[in-house]
Each structure stands twice: as C-alpha cells, then as structure tokens.
C-alpha cells in the first residue's frame, strides 16, 4: 500500500516531468487559457527567440477584459484597447492558437467559457495569465494564475517551473441557511484567515455544504481562493461534476468518456491523506457576508458593525485599516446595513453564470431598482447571455430598471468604460474591492447576487433574508447553490 494521497498530490505527481535537485519541478500543463491583457509580451518573447507555440491544441484564447458590453462596435471608445485586441487576433493567427473573438458566439470571460465548453475537466493542470484561474479547481483540476513570463514558458514548452505548494483543507460542515450562498462561504473564509492566510498553499474545499453546491456554486467558491492568498482551490469531483461535464463540446465522448470517468473517480483524496493545514467552518452558522474595506479580507456578516481600527494593537495593520476606512468614508462601529448605494454590479467570473442570473432574477421579479441606483447585469459569456434571454431573464432585469449587457469582465476591472464615478458606492458580485478597482475613487462592497439584488431594490445595503421573508419564496430554501 502506497501512502494515502490528497487530490492535489495525485494531480501534481502525475504532471511532474522533471524533478532535479536545486531546481523547481518541471510541471506539465494540460490546458493553457489566454486573454488579451496578459499575453502580448509573451508572444513577443516567442518571436524574439524564434520559437513557436509548442501545443496550440492545448491553448485557447478569448477576449474579455477590455471588450465593450454595449452594442458598440470596435474600436469602441478606446483605440488602445482595440489595438490590444487586434494584437491578440494577430498572435493567434501567427501561432495557430484557436481564438474566441468578438464575432464568436462562444466568447466570454475566460473562466466562464472554459467550463462551459467542457475544456475544464477533472485531473487537468490548467493555467492562465490571470489570478482567478483558481475557478477551474471546482472540477477537481489543479488550476492557477501565472504571470506573463510564465505564459511565455507554457506557450514555448507546455510546461512551468513550480515549487510544490502546501495543502490546506477547508471543511464546510452543515448546510447553508436560506439566503446564504457560496459567495458568503468564501467571503467568510477570507475574513477569517485574512488575504495572506493561504499564501504558499492550495485549498481543498470539502464537507457537506460543499458537496451540496452546484458546479456553479463550487466555481464561485474556488474563484476567490486567490483572494485568500492561495493560488489554487479545489473541490474533489463527484457525480455533480461528471453530470456537468458530460456532453459539452470538448468533453470526452463514447469510450473516451468511460475511460476518463474511471480516472476521475480515482481522484478524490485517499482515506488518511495528510494536509499541511486544515480548518473547519460551520456553514449552518454563516450569514450573508459583505466587505467594508479595500481588500476582500475586510469582510463581515452583514448584520455586524464596521470594525474599529483603534482596537488593533498592530501599528501597520491599524494604519492599513484606517487608510481603508478613510478611502471608503465609513465610520467605525456603525452598521453597513442601510448604507446608501449608487450602483449595483451583477457580473464577473465569480457570479455571472446562469444560476446566478436565475436566482437574482427570481428575487428582483416584480420589484424595481430603487430610484437613483444604477444596476448593471453582465452575463459571463455570450452563451450565458443567450440562455438567459431564452428564459426571459433579460426582460425581468430590464423591467426592474436594470441594464442588460453583453458578456465581458466589465465593471469588475473597469477597463472598458463600465466604471464607477469617484465617490460612488457599489454593491458588487465581483471579487475585488481594491481601491479604484471599479473606477478611480469608486468604493466597492463585495457580496452575493442575492445581497446585490436586495440592495438594488432598497437603494441601500440590505440583508437579502429580509426580502425572502416578505416574499415567502420557498425556492430560496435552496439558495445555497448560488
């Protein structure tokens, strides 16, 4: 009997190409996703060295970060962004890399389309020049973000130089209460361990509350692993996973499917496998979460008051919190509930999939976005947009007074003109509340889609459970899959 292995160990060990003393491991990469912002310098590097893309068949590119989400045509409002998109198209042509471009009906946020197209599969190593590549770990893949030099390494060799990270098991016991979602699970974890809590580690999320999540909920959970400092987060694959992957365009078919399934079933951690760290969170006790500060670790249960920096004995930490509250113009000790907001952003690779839109639409149906509040709904991919429109969700949002957009990163990163004005407050379903992330001077409260909708309707930060009680909507008994 060999040593019991974790899910991470199994994937890592089977992808080691070379392990020499005094050098990092040469790790094989099964799938490399590429977008316009972090790839141009990597392709230039290949040209300078006279190298080709070694495995274009394992490389897929899309346009998402700086693309317009209105019907506007390129070169849009921004000639520089247009040039960057043209450069990606040129690079993909020159190097034979498949590209989902502006005309493609499959285009979308890179972390939405990978799973949607069946490219993301259990057991794979997946990288992208993008820190939210951790999303794909929801399938029991080892997926992590890399820098542009590393993008060049993978393009040139299909391999990366990596030191083996440590493992960190996060158990979510119990079951989520109505109105509490996957987003709240991950915000609660990060609030507890801090944004550097997972540095050097890979999270594995386990426990009954995780098992009960849909694939889309698991993607939300894994998406924000990087916000807890871990480059990757994973969930062991199970029937929910296989059901999601089956039949997708790039999923294995026929005999290959049976073979793949057998391999995937062997991936979950063995009994007795050791993790370097572990912790347990009682999912049943979680409330909807919201952030008050300028990093995703500055979060709290929505009913709590904003913390007081004066209570912190560490000088630098106190200075950082003071700086954050100054930026946010928030008073310590005061609740966030009832705080006036200007914008609601429903979108991003964290929460822009069909189930997110469905749950949000269900809550907003028959209600109105409060006067003076702007609400943007931005589907994660063109596929999600079409499916949502086929179900009439677009009309629900528009009738409520929200804007229905085309797919892209949009106001998550504010590169395409969708952005906050200085001083505005937004409740956003995205993943980063850094200073200026959603526009210079803009202020972000991160929360779940339900909290975002409830806040849009009331024009102020609102606990979504108050609306659930009013509507008595039974359906939200299962809101946990958001």
């Amino acid at each position, binding site marked *: 009997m060999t040593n019991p292995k974790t899910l991470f160990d199994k994937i890592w060990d089977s992808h080691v190409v070379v392990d020499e003393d005094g050098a990092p491991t040469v790790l094989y990469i099964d799938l490399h996703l590429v977008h316009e912002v972090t790839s141009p310098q990597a392709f230039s590097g290949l040209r300078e060295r006279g190298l080709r893309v070694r*495995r274009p068949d394992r490389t897929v590119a899309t346009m998402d970060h700086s693309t317009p989400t209105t019907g506007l045509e390129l070169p849009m409002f921004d000639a520089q962004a247009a040039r960057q998109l043209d450069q990606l198209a040129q690079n993909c042509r020159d190097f034979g890399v498949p590209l989902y471009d502006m005309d493609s009906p499959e285009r979308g946020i890179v972390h939405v389309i990978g799973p949607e197209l069946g490219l993301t599969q259990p057991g794979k190593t997946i990288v992208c020049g993008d820190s939210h590549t951790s999303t794909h770990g929801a399938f029991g893949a080892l997926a992590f973000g890399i*820098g542009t030099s590393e993008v060049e*390494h993978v393009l040139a060799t299909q391999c990366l*130089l990596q030191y083996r990270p440590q493992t960190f098991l996060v158990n979510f016991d119990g079951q989520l209460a109505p109105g509490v979602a996957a987003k709240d699970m991950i915000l609660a974890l990060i609030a507890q361990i801090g944004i550097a809590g997972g540095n050097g580690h890979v999270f594995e999320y386990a426990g009954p509350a995780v098992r009960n999540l849909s694939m889309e909920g698991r993607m939300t959970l894994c998406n924000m692993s990087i916000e807890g400092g871990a480059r990757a987060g994973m969930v062991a694959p199970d029937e929910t996973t296989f059901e999601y992957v089956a039949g997708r365009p790039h999923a294995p078919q026929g005999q290959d499917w049976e073979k793949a399934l057998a391999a995937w079933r062997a991936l979950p951690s063995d009994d007795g496998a050791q993790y370097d760290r572990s912790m347990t969170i009682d999912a049943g006790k979680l409330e909807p979460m919201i952030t008050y500060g300028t990093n995703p670790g500055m979060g709290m249960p929505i009913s709590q008051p904003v913390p007081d920096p004066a209570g912190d004995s560490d000088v*630098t930490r106190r200075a950082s919190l003071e700086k954050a509250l100054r930026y946010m113009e928030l008073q310590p000790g005061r609740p966030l509930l009832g705080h006036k907001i200007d914008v609601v952003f429903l979108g991003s690779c964290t929460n822009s999939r069909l189930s997110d839109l469905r749950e949000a639409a269900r809550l907003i149906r028959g209600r109105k976005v409060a006067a003076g509040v702007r609400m943007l709904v931005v589907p994660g991919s063109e596929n999600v947009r079409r499916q949502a429109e086929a179900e009439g969700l677009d009309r629900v949002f528009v009738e409520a007074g929200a804007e229905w957009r085309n797919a892209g990163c949009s106001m998550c990163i504010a*590169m395409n003109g969708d952005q906050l004005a200085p001083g505005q407050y937004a409740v956003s379903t995205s993943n980063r509340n850094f200073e200026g992330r959603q526009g210079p001077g803009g202020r972000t409260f991160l929360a779940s889609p339900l909290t975002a909708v409830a806040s849009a309707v009331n024009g102020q930060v609102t606990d979504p459970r108050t609306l659930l009680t009013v509507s008595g909507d039974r359906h939200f008994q299962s809101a946990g899959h958001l």
Partner: protein
Amino acid sequence: MKPFTTLTSAVVPLPYNDVDTDQIIPASYLKVTTKQGLSQGLFARWRYVSEGKPDPDFPLNQQKYQGAQILLAGDNFGCGSSREHAPWALLGYGFRAVISTSFADIFRNNALKNGLLPVALAPQAHKQLLAQVQANPAATVTIDLRSQTITLPDGQQTAFPIDSFSKTCLLQGVDQLGYLLKQMRRIEEYEEVRELKN
C-alpha cells in the same frame, strides 16, 4: 535580464500592508502590448491627485527619495491580480528590490523572473529598518545576493531567503526559460508516456 549581485541604495518607505497589484499599477495602464513605459502608471492612484498632477505627500514625489532603488513596504506585498506589469512598472521606475515581511506568491514569481529582488525580512528587522529610514531618508542599505544578506543603515546584518535556482538566474542575469527549453527531450518523453501526442 540585468544580473543582480549587490545593491547599495536609499530606501523609499511605503509602510502599508497588503499593497495589491491594482495599486502598484491600475488596470487602465494595462492596455499595452510591450513592457515599456509602464513606470508612468506606477502607484498612479496614490501618486497623482488628478491626471498627471503629482500628490506632494506621496513618497515617490518627494525630493528626499529621488533616485532610491529600494522600496520598503508592509506585509504581503503584491497581492491580488497576477499582472506582471507590476514588476515591470517598478523596474521601469528604477527600483531593483522590494523589502517586505512577505510577498504574495504570484508577485514574487513575477519579480524574480525580471530581476526585481523580493527581500522578505523577519518582522523585527523590518520594523527596525522602517524606523531607521524614517529617521534619515538619506540612509542606505546594502543588499548582497550572493551571501543573501542585507546591511541596515545602523550596520546590523540580517539574512533573507531565496531559492537557489532563482538566485543563480539573478546572479547570472539569465532568464528561466532557458532551463525549460533544455528539458525538451524529457517533455517529449512525458507526452509519449501519457499519450499526449497530437
């Protein structure tokens, strides 16, 4: 890549924890296709009060710190986005090293691949260094990569960690892709065994 051996320089203090890469270089500066010119966007949201107008309170804009090649930041420097534009912007501005108590994983990897040295000090040494450079902005420190030591303004010497592979690459000024390219035969064998040939 420029080799990194020793560096003696004044230090710019930026004593905040968790400085994220969105602050190091905001997304609006990322619509480029080269590595050049990014230093204009370095700390743009903190450095300028409005378009191109410097904030006199921000350390990089102060006369006393001009020419300093070392940045001293708080814990967990470089968290957030994987953008390699962050080390490119720091290098473009003239920094060769960043000192902190810890670095986010992706930032550290990116910095090392570009000849920007991340120096993680123990909290006590970090605190002392901050006090010394705040007391005397002209004070210099010396970083010696070969011996992995840093000499604080008061003469105190302290060690810092770095993996031997990155260290060798930095000392010689060679990038890491060269090593990977030398493994091509092994990579092909691996693909053969796993039947990954196309």
